[in-house]
């Protein structure tokens, strides 16, 4: 199935909106994290959120996850107003949240088990996913026995196995070494092409953002962060992350976003 074609089809009909933020504000006490934030994300879009440190990008993920509640404004996912934990979203945290007392297999099958799938079926699914992320011989290991890259693979299988429509990723690959990182990014893109989840991807690495996403949202420096720019990434798919930078158009886009990002980074630095 050529994914490109399907995407064109949906855009002709007008794709459904998966995530919609409407004048969202978030305050912790007197500290305003986000102010008047509004954007829509169509179903199946891969969106990268970039901005200077402390601009509240991670808070946006936590809001969509339902782990935080907005102080003002409304947040809809899949057309429904979100008022508790978002059951339609998987979340890949920066520091993986693997359960140290469960083996790789038990960790990956946890999602389906928690959602009521029988253990036998969940184990069957989990084995497929573990194989997909290349950890077939590691099923019975515990997280403490894995390398950083392997743990990330487990976290990826754990997040993807539930096949949820929304995927939230918070600097998911930034803790990895450069080679492992490029490898994981490509593997992830491959899996994503197949699942077609709507992705919100927080990163501080602009190159990673452009290489992976369909769209880049740029945030201003906090406090009271708001949206500064919204850029479409017109690069063809499927992509190889380490090769995208040679594709015509990449450099121009990078430069445009970077110039704007730099202003905000400087602003954040001065504060």
């Amino acid at each position: 199935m050529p994914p490109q074609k399907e995407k064109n089809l949906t855009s002709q009909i007008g794709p459904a909106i998966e995530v919609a933020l409407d004048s969202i504000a978030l305050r912790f006490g007197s500290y305003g994290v986000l102010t008047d934030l509004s954007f829509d994300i169509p179903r199946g879009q891969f969106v990268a959120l970039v901005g200077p440190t402390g601009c509240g990008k991670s808070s946006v993920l936590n809001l969509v996850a339902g782990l935080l509640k907005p102080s003002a404004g409304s947040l809809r996912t899949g057309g429904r107003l979100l008022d508790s934990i978002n059951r339609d979203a998987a979340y890949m945290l920066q520091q993986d949240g693997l359960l140290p007392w469960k083996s790789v297999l038990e960790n990956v099958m946890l999602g389906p088990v928690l959602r009521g799938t029988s253990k036998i079926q969940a184990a069957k699914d989990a084995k497929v996913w573990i194989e997909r992320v290349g950890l077939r011989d590691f099923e019975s290991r515990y997280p403490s026995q894995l390398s950083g890259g392997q743990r990330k693979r487990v976290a990826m299988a754990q997040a993807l196995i539930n096949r949820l429509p929304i995927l939230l990723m918070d600097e998911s690959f930034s803790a990895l070494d450069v080679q492992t990182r490029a490898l994981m990014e490509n593997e992830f893109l491959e899996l994503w092409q197949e699942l077609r989840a709507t992705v919100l991807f927080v990163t501080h690495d602009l190159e990673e953002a452009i290489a992976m996403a369909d769209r880049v949202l740029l945030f201003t420096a906090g406090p009271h962060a708001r949206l500064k720019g919204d850029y479409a990434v017109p690069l063809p798919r499927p992509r190889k992350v380490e090769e995208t930078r040679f594709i015509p158009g990449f450099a121009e886009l990078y430069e445009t976003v970077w110039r704007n990002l730099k202003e905000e980074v400087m602003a954040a630095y001065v504060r």
Partner: protein
Amino acid sequence: MSGEKRAHVLAVQMALLVVFVGTWEWASRLRWIDPFFFSQPSIFGGRAFQWLTEPGFLLGGRSVYHHLFVTMQEMIGGFVLGVGFGVIVGFALGRSRFWSAVLNPYIQVLNALPRLVLAPIFVLLLGIDERSKIALGFSLVFFIVFFNAYRGVRDVDRNIVNNARMLGASEAQLARHVLLPSAMTWILSSLHTSVGFALVGAVVGEYLAAAQGLGWIISQAQGNFDAAGVYAGMLILCVVVIVVEFGVTWLERRLIRWKDINETMFA
């Protein structure tokens, strides 16, 4: 540790024991120390052996095994109740910030109170049978386990909790898959101390007021100025503690295997 090293450690341990017991024995025989107070390993060892092997040798009309059984019963009673309630209350307060804030000063006061002074009250309240000893053991064990369970629930990694929530965990599932296993490491590390305290509760309780049990035997021997009887009772208690310790270690290994693997890998 390699097998050779372990054998070495064991050999030195044995040598230390022989030197200690031998010095005691000879010092007592040569009257460097007064055998009236310090007895003599050969004498109290023989006494303990006699208690354990001669079926006709009765203490207060019952065999030493009966007394041992009574003490063990009290110890296990205090231990099980203390651990059970400690885990439940620790868990509940760990989950509720409001109630832990409300109850905090009261728990601190109760914990600061030396619980052995409660022994007379338990005797008055519950009589001189097993129940007063179980209550004393309970009061000692409860706080140790409670604080550890509480801490285990509080110290659970926020990342893991959020991850489990996002994967679809309800509150009950969160308790079962995340909070309980997390608290388990803390609770298990407290069990070694708790077992000891459960035994303290049983023996001290018997020592104060009882009609049977090892503590009672020791107190009777003391009343008769029979140092050998006191030491023989202590010897049997020591063996009991060692056996129970092995049991707890075994349980710990089984229940937190994931951690054990981690430690042996990077040791």
